[in-house]
C-alpha cells in the first residue's frame, strides 16, 4: 500500500504546503529525487526499467526547463518528475526534434507529474518541465522504459 498511500497523501501534502510554508529542514527525508523515484516506482512492476541517471535542479514559475533525451522507436517511456515545497504544481511535456509538441500521456498530481510517450521514430526529443504553481523549488526528473 506504500505507493498508493503516497499518491493519496500527495494532494494533502500539496494543500498543506500552500497554507503553511514548510522549511526544507523539517522534511529532510523527502527529497525531490525520492519523490520522483516513488512516482516512477509505480511503473517498475509493470515491466518498466528505471534509469539510474537523473536530472536534478531548481525550477521557478515562468521559467520552464528543457532537457534533451534520445529515445528508441518501439520503446515505451514514462518521464517522472517531482519538486519539493514550495512547488505546488508541476507538468512534464514532450517535444520532437523540431520543437513541436508530440502526443503523450500526461499525469499530474500537485508537485509530481509524468509524461508517457512511445516514439515511432528514434532520435532526439525534448522534455519540458514547467512549474505551474508555487515558488522556486528543487526538482528531480527520472525516467523508466520498457
Amino acid at each position, binding site marked *: *500500500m*506504500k*505507493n*498508493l498511500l503516497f*499518491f493519496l497523501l500527495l494532494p494533502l501534502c500539496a494543500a498543506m504546503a500552500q497554507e503553511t510554508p514548510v522549511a526544507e529542514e523539517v522534511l529532510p527525508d523527502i527529497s525531490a529525487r525520492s519523490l520522483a523515484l516513488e512516482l516512477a*516506482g*509505480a*511503473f*517498475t*512492476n*509493470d515491466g518498466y*526499467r*528505471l*534509469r*539510474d*541517471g*537523473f*536530472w536534478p535542479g531548481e525550477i521557478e514559475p515562468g521559467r*520552464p*526547463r*528543457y*532537457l*534533451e*533525451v*534520445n*529515445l*528508441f*522507436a*518501439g*520503446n515505451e517511456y514514462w518521464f517522472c518528475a517531482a519538486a519539493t515545497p514550495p512547488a505546488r504544481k508541476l*507538468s512534464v*511535456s514532450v*517535444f520532437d*526534434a*523540431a*520543437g*513541436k*509538441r508530440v*502526443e*503523450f*500521456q*500526461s*499525469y*499530474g*498530481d500537485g508537485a509530481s507529474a*509524468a509524461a*508517457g510517450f512511445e516514439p515511432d*521514430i*528514434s*532520435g*532526439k526529443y*525534448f522534455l*519540458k518541465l514547467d512549474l505551474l504553481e508555487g515558488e522556486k523549488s528543487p526538482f528531480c*526528473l*527520472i*525516467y523508466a*522504459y*520498457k
Partner: protein
Amino acid sequence: MTRTAHVFFLILAAAAFAGMPAHGSMTKEDLASVEKLDAVTIPMPGEFFTAMGKVGQPAWGQYLRSGSPGVTDSRSMIALGLGTLVADGYVAVEAQDGQAIKNIGKEILALAKKLNVSQSVLGRSNSIADFADNNDWNALREELEATQNEVKLDMVDQNDDRLVTLVSLGAWIRGVDLVSGMVTTEYSPAGAKLLRQPAIIEYLMAGIDELPESARNEAPLPEIRAGLVTSLPLVEPEVPSAEQVANLNTTMRALFDRINGSAPTP
C-alpha cells in the same frame, strides 16, 4: 490486483482524464535553452538492446564478449574500454548468462582500479555477483548503469571529467557495433530505425572537441572522431538502408577493435 497495479491504473486513469496540454511549439529561445546531461541524455546500451529485443529475437549468447580489453597504460584507452565492458555487461544480462556477467564485473573492477576509481565500484561488483547468482536480471541492468554512473562521479571528483565522455563513447560504440551487426545479418526496417541516433553522435563528437588539445589528439581519439564523422550521415535517415547499416557496422567494428587492441571480437 497488486498495490503497484492499483497505482499504475490510478496513473493511467488520471492521464486519461488529464487531457492533452494545448498544442504548441518551442520557440527559438526555448530550443537554445535545452540542456544536455550525460546521465539522462545518453541512453544506456540496455535501453538500446531492449528496443532491439522487441524487433527480433537476437541470439544474445552469440554476442557475448570473448576477450578482454587490451593491456594499456593510457587512461583514455582504459576509460573507453570500460565503456565497452558496460555495454557487454548488458549483452550478458540479455543472454541471461550469470558467469559472463560476473566475469565482466571483475574486468570492470580491474579497469576501475587502474583509473583509481575502484572504491565505489567494489561494492557494486559484489552486488553484480550476488544478483547474477540469483538470476535477478532487472537488478543487474540497474546495477550496471549505477556502476557506470559511480565511476563517472569518481572521475569528476578526481578532476578527470574528460574520462566521463570516453566511458559514454566506448559504451555507445560497442552498442552500435552489436546492434548494427545484428541488423546487417538480418536486415529489417524496424531494426534499422533503432540506429537513427544522429544527436548522440553529435553529442559525443562535441565531447571529444571539448577535451584539452593533448587529450583530443591522443590515439585513438582522432581515429574515433573520424569514425563518428563517417557514421553521422549513415544514421540520419529515418530508416537507414541495408547498405548504410552495413557501412555503419564496418565503421563501429573497426573502432571497437581499435579500442580493444588485438582482443578477439564475437
